[in-house]
């Protein structure tokens, strides 16, 4: 009996140990890295370098940038707090976010972008998409004087939850992926990627011009503020174009079955279907629509732009177009450089989420460099000074509200060989779907 008890105890301990060591090497790395130095004090004694108003985070120009700019940063390790979502329903975005972030962090530190002996470090904690967890994580970051600024979120609902405490604390907060238009604030809340609503409106206009529909249906993830804003942007275009909206169908972020909503959408008989859904729900919706015989154009969003999307859904994705700020096939040196490094590191093609993670790290580095001091105030000022920046999304510009925009969006579609390719905005340019 004693042996059985010992065996049971050993098995239980093994299970617990396995669960505790949850393989989140990002967290382990973050917490065991060299602690922040007294850079804040030292930096305060140095002369603040004149900050550049146009950031140059392009990795291909790192050497020149180093030679041209002398940041007033004392040698040391400067920390930022990053709220990740590497577990839960949005982990499909959160995992590449962190991978891109870590890649950029290494590039920044190894290139000496911030000067000799100056490194940055992102403390990464996983909130799993949970609002309460995100609040707790960011409160801890705020209480940690070594954390100079915050980076969050992947979900608009989480961004809304953490907003009050961060605004109250007054340090810089950069949203790296959440798409609700209400997040940014000229005082301290900024965005490091282009807001999606203009892209939604842009592709809706393109679809109206290309397909000349008489009517349309819209599907939305109704419990996501950002996607509701995307829906409204689409409806605005349809309304102004005189397109009849036959129905707006609500779905929810944790839905796992789209057979019912897809049947409802198809029953409307719409010429074009617009989707503003979250992650896997949009993939499932496209699958169901095509599998059930819908042959018209589908206008999606970046939820169906990951490589896993093709593995999951395959050919039913044909005939669906989406606007995107980044895709690895873009013939731009910065994009190609990033894609090559990412593939070498993670053995997979970077998606939009990896690009968001990578870009926000460079954005924060530039803000630190602009600020010239390792203080929260200096970093906040450094963020405010960034007016435009060459990024993997294109040339980003920021308005007075801290909102980021790019001048042109790329429209893409899946090709039969599982690659994202450009959609030229014409009806003829749309690849045939499985029902044609």
């Amino acid at each position, binding site marked *: 009996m004693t042996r059985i008890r010992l065996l049971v105890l050993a098995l239980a301990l093994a299970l617990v140990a*396995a669960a505790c060591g949850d393989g989140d090497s990002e967290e382990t790395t973050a917490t065991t890295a060299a602690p922040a130095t007294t850079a804040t004090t030292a930096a305060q004694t140095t002369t603040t370098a004149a900050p550049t108003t146009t950031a140059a985070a392009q990795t291909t120009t790192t050497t020149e940038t180093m030679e041209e700019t002398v940041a007033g940063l004392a040698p040391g390790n400067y920390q930022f707090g990053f709220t990740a979502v590497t577990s839960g329903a949005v982990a499909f975005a959160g995992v590449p976010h962190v991978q891109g972030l870590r890649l950029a962090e290494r590039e920044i530190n190894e290139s000496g972008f911030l000067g000799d002996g100056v490194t940055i470090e992102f403390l990464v904690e996983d909130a799993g998409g949970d609002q309460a967890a995100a609040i707790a994580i960011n409160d801890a970051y705020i209480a940690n004087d070594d954390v100079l600024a915050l980076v969050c979120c992947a979900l608009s609902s989480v961004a809304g939850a953490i907003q009050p405490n961060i605004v109250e604390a007054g340090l810089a907060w950069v949203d790296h992926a959440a798409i609700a238009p209400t997040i940014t604030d000229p005082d301290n809340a900024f965005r490091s990627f282009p807001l999606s609503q203009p892209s939604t409106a842009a592709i809706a206009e393109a679809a109206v011009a290309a397909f000349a529909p008489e009517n349309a249906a819209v599907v939305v993830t109704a419990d996501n503020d950002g996607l509701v804003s995307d829906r409204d942007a689409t409806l605005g275009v349809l309304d102004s174009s005189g397109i009849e909206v036959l129905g707006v169908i609500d779905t929810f972020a944790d839905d796992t079955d789209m057979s019912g909503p897809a049947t409802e959408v198809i029953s409307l008989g719409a010429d074009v279907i617009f989707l503003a859904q979250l992650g896997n729900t949009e993939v499932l919706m496209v699958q169901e629509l095509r599998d059930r015989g819908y042959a018209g154009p589908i206008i999606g969003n970046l939820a169906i732009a990951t490589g*896993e999307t093709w593995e999951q859904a395959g050919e039913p994705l044909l005939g669906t177009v989406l606007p995107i700020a980044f895709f690895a096939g873009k013939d731009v040196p910065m994009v190609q450089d990033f894609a090559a490094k990412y593939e070498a590191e993670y053995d997979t093609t970077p998606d939009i989420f990896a690009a968001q993670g990578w870009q926000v790290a460079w954005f924060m580095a530039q803000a630190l460099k602009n600020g010239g001091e390792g203080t929260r105030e200096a970093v906040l000022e450094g963020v405010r000074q960034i007016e435009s920046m060459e990024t993997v999304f294109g040339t980003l510009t920021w308005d007075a509200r801290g909102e980021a925009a790019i001048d042109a969006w790329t429209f893409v579609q899946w090709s039969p060989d599982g690659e994202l390719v450009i959609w030229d905005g014409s009806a003829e340019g749309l690849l045939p779907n499985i029902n044609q």
Partner: protein
Amino acid sequence: MTLFLQQTINGLAVGSSYAIFSMGFGLVFATMGILNVAHGTYATWGAILALAAFDSLGVGLVPSIAIGMAGGGLIGVLVDQLGFEPIRRRGGGLLGPIITSIGFWIILGQLAIIATGARIKTFPREALPRGFVRVADLVIPYHQIITFVVALVLLLILYLFIMRTNAGAQMRAVGWDPDSAKISGVNPRRVVIVISFIAAGTAAIAGILSSISTNNVSFTVGEGLLLKGFAAVIIGGFGDLRGAYIGGILIGLAEVLGAQYISNSFRDFITFGLLVIVLLVRPKGLMGDRIVGLRA
């Protein structure tokens, strides 16, 4: 009419996966008195193990499903023997097993995150049944037909096993009173192990079928099934497998038809509103108080 029939088919398919899950969930609740919230993770692990078998062992889809089901069943046995058996031996009440099951829910959920890398995994598309049967204007995907048939066959097999075999009689005896069963020569621990395996195995089947329907193997597979499975058991009556089946089907129909004809926004309101109504009108569920099953 076509729309109504199409949505009814969708509701039956969704409800069938709830029914499969809830049959095992109800079996454990009825025989052991355990509200096992870790039950959803058996569905998750069934799907993960089936995919792992398919990828690693190079076996076909059906053998992979069998491996996933067996793996899920064994995890259920492991959880029972590690977590619930010690509590049973000490005569623990209702709360201890619930807390224990929450612990295993978290542990198995975290392990599922590690196993999947928190990403969505997929079976190769060509390995899945993606065709359709078209009847007039109705489109019925193969996977919906498979889910519906599997639910019915499982109900039949489990019901006959429990009601017509000696092993089933032992299960009913243990569900009625373990001490009396022991006096009659039944080995309650062995019976409990069998029940745990069957219950977790059926949850694993539900998880695998759900994953195949959506080609989505992730650590969240079982989460959607858990609440609906629980509601199905309460609605149908936890003392009878047929009640769990009917409860699952009703929830599926209410969910899909409610979304179509009322609003998708009220879907969960409709589902759990149904639960509340049944609890008020028939506290023991639709079949729990009048059909002889696992419990009186």
